[in-house]
């Protein structure tokens, strides 16, 4: 296996280092490495760059099996690598639903075959995501995919007794229920954030309370049965407040925020362009600021992309008929830098925590999110905070083009990604050959 020397970059806390990678691990990390192997190693220029642990996404829609026209595990893995990710978590809402050991093992195997990042399947909480009967959570946990996160994402586990039992049941294998907090009764046919703007635009509102009431119920349930709850894509200031309160009480709750909810607001719906249609919906500037504060102070543990590829025809229509969701993997880092680092709300160490260490811990991905030191797995993202770029939907690695950021410019970019000591991305471009393919 080729050795690599990352040269000229700095670690999150600011130390200038060289990093020598051999056999999938970091073998030396110092100002100037001393190993004679460094001479023959392939040198990777990291001047003006930060060397961070590879990013870990807890919320990724890879669409395979079932909707391979919009994304596959392989194409999604390429998008992940370009975004600096070394691990993603494939959501269960595929066709068929990932509610059996067979499906999660298939997705896991596809990820290993692609070999660009680890693909950890998320198992469905209930059979067919229908919210009625528990899926075989134990079988999925014991499968080769070793599932630890369970979610009906796209649907809320609405029945409180189903939610309670799921929370209890996963304690057996230290699992976690990732809830899509959306009261379905309060959001029937909902199109966008409910408020002044939805009223003016004549669109059915998705009120904050539909999210907050479920979060409130679930943190109380998690407290009651002493289990782990993860709240998917928090979008409201009220939701942040409830989670802050729950954490102060010692409840085992973690939460995620998406890059788009850190950056975009409901005002974009004024165009009626369904590229901005997403579930949960874009909220107000006040919510955006509360989410940023929550992420900065640790109330929100992680950034998760909710990468949701959709075919062209499901967005080339009137808003009401369009699918919910937007791409996220390839732009996540740039947005977190823009919203959290460039605004001085977070440090680079915080970013490494929210995008790598914390999500790996929540998912139990022990191979990921490791601090960069001798002996660590070489899952690495190298980012250049001053190398700007412009998003072009025709250049995405994803099979779909539904990015709301087309034409937007960001000041920082992912330069290189190492997965198990092998570069998947160099000079911001995908490395063709991997695992001998």
């Amino acid at each position, binding site marked *: 296996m080729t050795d690599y020397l990352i040269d000229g970059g700095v670690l999150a806390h600011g130390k200038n280092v060289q990093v020598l990678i051999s056999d999938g691990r970091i073998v030396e990390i110092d100002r100037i490495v001393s190993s004679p192997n460094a001479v023959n190693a392939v040198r990777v220029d990291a001047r003006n760059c930060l060397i961070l642990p590879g990013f870990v996404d807890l919320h990724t829609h890879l669409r395979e099996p079932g909707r391979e026209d919009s994304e596959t595990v392989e194409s999604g893995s390429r998008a992940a690598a370009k975004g600096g990710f070394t691990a993603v978590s494939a959501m269960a809402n595929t066709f068929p639903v990932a509610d059996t050991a067979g499906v999660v093992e298939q997705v896991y195997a596809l990820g290993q075959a692609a070999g660009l990042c680890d693909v950890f399947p998320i198992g469905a909480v209930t059979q067919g995501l229908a919210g009625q009967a528990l899926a075989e959570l134990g079988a999925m946990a014991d499968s080769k995919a070793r599932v630890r996160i369970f979610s009906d994402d796209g649907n809320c586990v609405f029945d409180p007794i189903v939610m309670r039992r799921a929370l209890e049941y996963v304690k057996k294998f230290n699992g976690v229920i990732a809830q899509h907090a959306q009261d379905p009764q309060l959001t029937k046919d909902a*199109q966008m954030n*409910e*408020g*002044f*703007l*939805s*009223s*003016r*635009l*004549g*669109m*059915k*509102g998705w*009120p904050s309370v539909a999210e907050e009431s479920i979060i409130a119920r679930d943190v109380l349930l998690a407290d009651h049965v002493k289990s782990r709850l993860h709240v998917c894509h928090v979008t409201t200031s009220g939701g942040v407040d409830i989670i802050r309160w729950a954490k102060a009480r010692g409840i085992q709750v973690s939460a995620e925020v998406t890059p788009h909810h850190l950056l975009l607001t409901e005002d974009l719906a004024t*165009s*009626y*362009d369904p590229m901005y249609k997403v579930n949960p919906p874009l909220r107000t500037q006040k919510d955006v600021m509360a989410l940023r504060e929550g992420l900065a102070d640790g109330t929100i543990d992680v950034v998760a992309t909710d990468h949701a590829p959709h075919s062209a*025809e499901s967005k*080339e*229509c*009137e*808003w*009401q*008929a369009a699918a919910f969701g937007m791409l996220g993997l390839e732009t996540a880092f740039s947005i977190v830098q823009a919203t959290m680092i460039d605004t001085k709300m977070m440090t680079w160490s915080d970013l490494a925590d929210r995008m790598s260490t914390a999500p790996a811990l929540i998912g139990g991905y022990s191979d990921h999110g490791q601090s960069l030191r001798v002996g660590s797995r070489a899952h690495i993202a190298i980012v250049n905070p001053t190398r700007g770029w412009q998003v072009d939907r025709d250049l995405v690695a994803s099979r779909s083009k539904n990015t709301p950021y087309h034409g937007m410019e960001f000041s920082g970019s992912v330069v290189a990604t190492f997965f198990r000591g092998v570069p998947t991305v160099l000079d911001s471009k995908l490395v063709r050959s991997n695992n001998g393919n």
Partner: protein
Amino acid sequence: MRHLLSTADLSYAQANKILDTAKEMARISEGPVKKLPTLRGRTIVNLFFEDSTRTRISFEAAAKRLSADVINFSAKGSSASKGESLKDTAQTLQAMGADAVILRHSASGAAQRLASSHWTTGSVINAGDGTHEHPTQALLDAFTIRKHLRGGTGDLRGLTVAIVGDILHSRVARSNIHLLNLLGAQVILVAPPTLIPLGAEKWPVQISYDLDAVLPLVDAVMMLRVQQERMNDFFFPTAREYSHYYGLNSDRLKLMKPNSLIMHPGPMNRGLEITAESADSARSVILEQVTNGVSVRMAVLYLLLAGAPNEGGDLI
């Protein structure tokens, strides 16, 4: 201006120009020869994704009086169901050389979506999009009020207009709120709290839950249709209770000022939001609204297709 999507897009001058032009159109319509050659050779498509015979025939009559060729295209369903998508339909019509598309659609924003897409190059006229807007209805309402209470000229300053009923789901209400404000009228929304949109307190309107208190103040009252489907969605307890508090009946008629107008965009639910006595009373201008609808739509088609208003609302 190439499209008419929302009354919020109109300037004061543009709105008045449309109303003035409509007055001319009405004069012609009353004459012995009802037809103008203005739009001869132009093709106008009535693209209706939602049933609305009244609005469609009104636009059709307007276009024909201007000598345009009219194609009626009823597309049942939307791209959400198995019907043809808005995009494919629009491109098909474009390929057939449509100069203007009059669009009725159940999705809010459909007309704006069509106008901002590359699916058609013609003018887009919003004939009702979901629960968003219905600009020509508001224009014909303003025209009717102006004719009766302002002698057919000028704006509506000093007048108070109540819009009563299902504001939440009403595209007519939204278009009227923008336009009435633009023309200087005071707007009072009257409905049970469940049918007032969230955030409406920030709109340039007054809000009341009490129709009896409002009626003595108004120069015109617009009664909105209450859809049957609202009954099952907990917006109000029963149809009878709704009528009791918000129906325009003969007792309430007596509370109104002598020269005030009763309006309704149609179709009416007689006995629910309006009783027969009110709908057929001397103050009712409901049928005249229908007549004026043709004149206003002629004006809109004429101004959009025969010439275009420039920046600042200097309509040609």
